[in-house]
Every structure is written in C-alpha cells, then in structure tokens.
C-alpha cells in the first residue's frame, strides 16, 4: 500500500485534547462531525487545509493524554493517510492500530511542512519527494502488523471471534 501526500507539521507533545477536544467528543459518535474539529486548538483551519491522503508529521510523544479513541478516528475521518512522529504515547498508538490508522515512528526532523512524501506501508519505507531523501522507519511489532492487515481490531474479532496471533 503506497500513500502519497503533503505534510502538515506539528511539534512535540500533541495531546488528545488538541486532536479532538473533550467538549466535542462527549456529544456524538458521528466521526465525520468530530473530524471537522480535528487539531482545532492548534490550527483552527486545519480540517479545511487537508487534502485526502495528507500526513500529520510531529515530534515526540504524539497523542499523549486521554484514552479517547475519538482522537485517531477524527484524524482518520479527516482523511489523513498516516501520522508520522518521532514517538507516540502508548494508548494513542494502540488505538490507531486498532482503528486502522497507520502510525509511523521515524526521525521527523528531515521532514518540513509542505514536503511531499511517498510512504510504502508494506515495504516500510518513506521517500521525501521534495528533498529526495529516504527516511528509515522503526518496524511495527508483528501483533500490530497482523491487526493492521486484518483492517483493525474490529475486523480481527469479526474474523476470529477472539485474539488470534
């Protein structure tokens, strides 16, 4: 699976309140509605700037804070192709895999806002089309690859009825 898109860059410690504020998430299960408010406190126009398949690129500890699964879902429903960061907070990371949102750990200092990237998820490679650089990425544990390949944890359970690793 190859994703191509431009980067929207953020800093360190992008928390779940920034991704989707508590004031919205408690009201609805309509993720298309929540997606309109994604990253709103960091960039009020973010949702309107995203073209389908774009990437969120950030520093360390992306997704820290709440366990709210609405955070990766809001990103996914805003049609972001993948989140690329130096590191992720653990609950967000699990939630992203469970909901089928690709999350990639790599050195994001080599990626600038607006750069075009080509991400090959099956090969696990990133090419920065703007700078021509290849960026090595940290491989995912087998369990997570299995869940992602099944299309998320819901699909995994639909298929097996329980955990099957």
């Amino acid at each position, binding site marked *: 699976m190859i994703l191509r898109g431009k980067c929207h860059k953020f800093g360190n410690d992008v928390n779940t*309140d920034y991704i989707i504020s508590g004031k919205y998430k408690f009201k609805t299960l309509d993720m298309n509605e929540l997606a309109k408010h994604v990253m709103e406190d960091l960039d009020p126009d973010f949702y309107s700037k995203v073209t389908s398949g774009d990437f969120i690129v950030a520093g360390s500890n992306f997704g820290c*804070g709440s366990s709210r699964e609405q955070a*990766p879902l809001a990103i996914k429903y805003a049609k972001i192709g993948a989140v690329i960061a130096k590191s992720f907070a653990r*609950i967000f990371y699990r939630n992203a895999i*469970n909901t089928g949102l690709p999350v990639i750990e790599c050195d994001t200092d080599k990626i600038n806002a607006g750069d075009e990237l080509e991400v090959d998820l099956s090969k696990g490679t990133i090419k920065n089309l703007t700078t021509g650089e290849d960026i090595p990425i940290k491989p995912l544990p087998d369990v997570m690859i299995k869940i992602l390949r099944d299309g998320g944890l819901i699909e995994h359970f639909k298929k097996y009825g329980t955990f099957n*690793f």
Partner: protein
Amino acid sequence: MGKTIIEKILSQKSGGDAYAGQIVVADVDYVMGQDGTAPLAIKSFREMGGTKVFDPEKVVFVIDHSAPSPNEGVSRLHKLMREFRDEYGIDFHDIGDGVCHQVVPESGKVGPGSLVVGADSHTCTYGALNAFATGVGSTDLAAAIISGKLWFKVPETIKFVLKGKLPKGVFAKDLILYLIGDVTADGATYMAAEYTGEAISNLSMDGRFTISNMAIEMGAKAGLMEADEKTFAFVKEHGGRDFTPVFADPDAVYAKVLEYDVSELEPMVAKPHTVDNTAKVTEVAGTPIHQAVLGTCTNGRLEDLRIAAKILEGRKIHPKTRLIVAPASRKIFLKAMEEGFIKIFVEAGAAVVTPGCGPCVGTHNGIPSDGENVISTANRNFKGRMGNSNAFIYLASPATVAASAIAGEIADPRPYF
C-alpha cells in the same frame, strides 16, 4: 531472572513467563468504561459481532464525565450505556455515584495482583492497590468485554525510590508533580513506574492514589506500588475479597532506578500548558486566580477535602475568585458532609457540584473564560482541557488550591500548617 511487579502480574495472567519486551495475551480481572469512551466501545462491541459479555460481574460502566448530562447529545450516549446495562446485567454507576477511579477501588473488586483495563487514561490509579491497571481505548475495551482478555507488550519498569518524609504543607500531589517535572511528560513512555521507599509507605491510600493516578502524565503504562497493611485495610473496608500481593524480586531488572529524598520538597505547581512545566509555588506566587477547582480523580478524596477544609474553615474565598468543589464519589460526599467539610466549603463561598469529571475535562460545571487563570487539583493542564483554549490552567495540591482561593492569587499553603 527476577521479575518486576508488572512482569509477575503479566506472567500470572498469561500463564507464561513474561519479561519486558515480550507480547502476551492475558486474562483481565475487571474492565471499566466511562461515558466518554463506553458508547464507542458499545459500537465496537456490536460491530465485532459481540453477543455476550465474558463475565457481567467483571465489567463496569460509570457515568461520570458529563454527569448529570449537560445536553441532549450526551443524554443519547448515556441512554446507550444504560441500555447495554439492561441487556447484559453489568456493574453500573449512574450520575452522582462519582468518578470511575474512585468508585472502582471503592467497589472492592480490584486489589493486589489484579489486572484491570479501563477506557480512561487514568486507570493507572489502581496501581496504588498493587494492581496492574492501565488505560485503553474503546475498541480494546470492547475486545476485553467480549473475550475477557487483551494483548499487552510487557513494559520495562522505572523504579522510583522515594526516601525521607514530606515536610509540613507538602503533599503527595507536590511529590508527583516534582517527579513528572524531573522525568518529563514522555520520560516513561511505553514503561511502567514502580514507586517504593518510606515516603510512599508513610502516605495514606488517598495520597498513594494521587501518585499512581498521574503515572500517565510521564507517559507510563502503569504506576505500581507494593501492598502493605494500609492496602489490605482499604480493600477490606470496601468489602473486597482476599487478594494475593505481588512483590518485585530482589534481582528484578529495571530500565533505571531513580532515587529522591523528599525531605526538602516544596509545594509545587504545573504551569500552563504541560504537566511537566513545573515550578515551586513560591516562584509563581501572586499570579491572579479566577477559578479554583477542588476534586477530580487525582485529588477529590476525603483526605484532600479535609486538608482544604482545614484551610478554608472560618475564611472566605477571595471576591474575585470562584471555588468549585466536586467530591470524587457519593461515599466521599456523604463522609465530607458528616465531618462538616461541605458546610465549611459552602460557607467559604464555594459551589459544590455533583461528584464527577466535568470541570476537569471541560464538558460542564466550570468552563473558564478567555484569559482566565485556573488553579486545579486535577492531573492535566493542556490548552483547552477545561473547555476553553484561551484559559490558563495551573495544577497544585488541595492545600495550595484552597490557599489560592482565599488569596485570589497563587499562594503558598505552608503558613496554614
């Protein structure tokens, strides 16, 4: 090779020999969802083809984040949770019972050696009971509700050895804020924290819950403590069964061991907008405060209310400051009434609200206005956390919050002790 507490619990629950770095599928003892996460878990449960709950007595839903409901959207989600309860007969706490991280320990269903998952990041609170308790998302929660299991990557552990005695006017909250400031907000990511030493054994259970509650604020998966007589007394008081405590082996392998002497610690705050942006109260004293919040899953327990009541008794909050008090549970609310604390708060000018999470998470019950400063006993001060991204949140102990509410500005509580 010796094991840490979390390695031992995950070995027992997975029927294997679990060490850091491995991935195991383990049996869960108790599963919790609240109104911010359970509705999505119910949706996932149904989409997964779930037709039964693995054990209704081991699943609990708590309505605490928007309780009572502030609007019809929330009411629809609450209704969904009540319908699930009616369908499957699970444990349930409706509005007014309290914050999940207080009502779960109060239920007596979790204790030493338990493995608990909760769809709330502060589930790590129950680590104070020597349980491995961790936050998960809604789909993980649904998988656990169906199967009674979940997969875990066994984490490495950072051991915190806390020596010495906390000085007067300095509390568990000051200690954990200090540690988070030192370790940083992602210093323990993908790891567990084990807290030990005389500073921990001297703390009440209420103080220990405060420490474990905030393990997530340094990125940790769990914040574990050894069980002792205070732990067993707490479990027994709440009708819990006999649990078997889990101790780390002397030759357990830690990612690192950090030692601190707490004897010289001062009252601390976390300044806006990150929890690790810490300072001594004396460094920010005089900062005007428009709203003070006493409560939350971090510091809404009886001991916290007692400390605040001691300061507020016979005094009035500053005319330019509001004080919101939310006891952590119905039981605590009742005890606080019996002991006269609620009367003290109300006479001092506080607004006492339903036990719950509203003010902390920004859903209702005290959303600040633009440019206002809030001092709160909560665990997060992220921008927008309390419902307005143009407000500034400071985190502190109940003593500092009470002293600041009286002064109308951030104030050192030590003169009151």
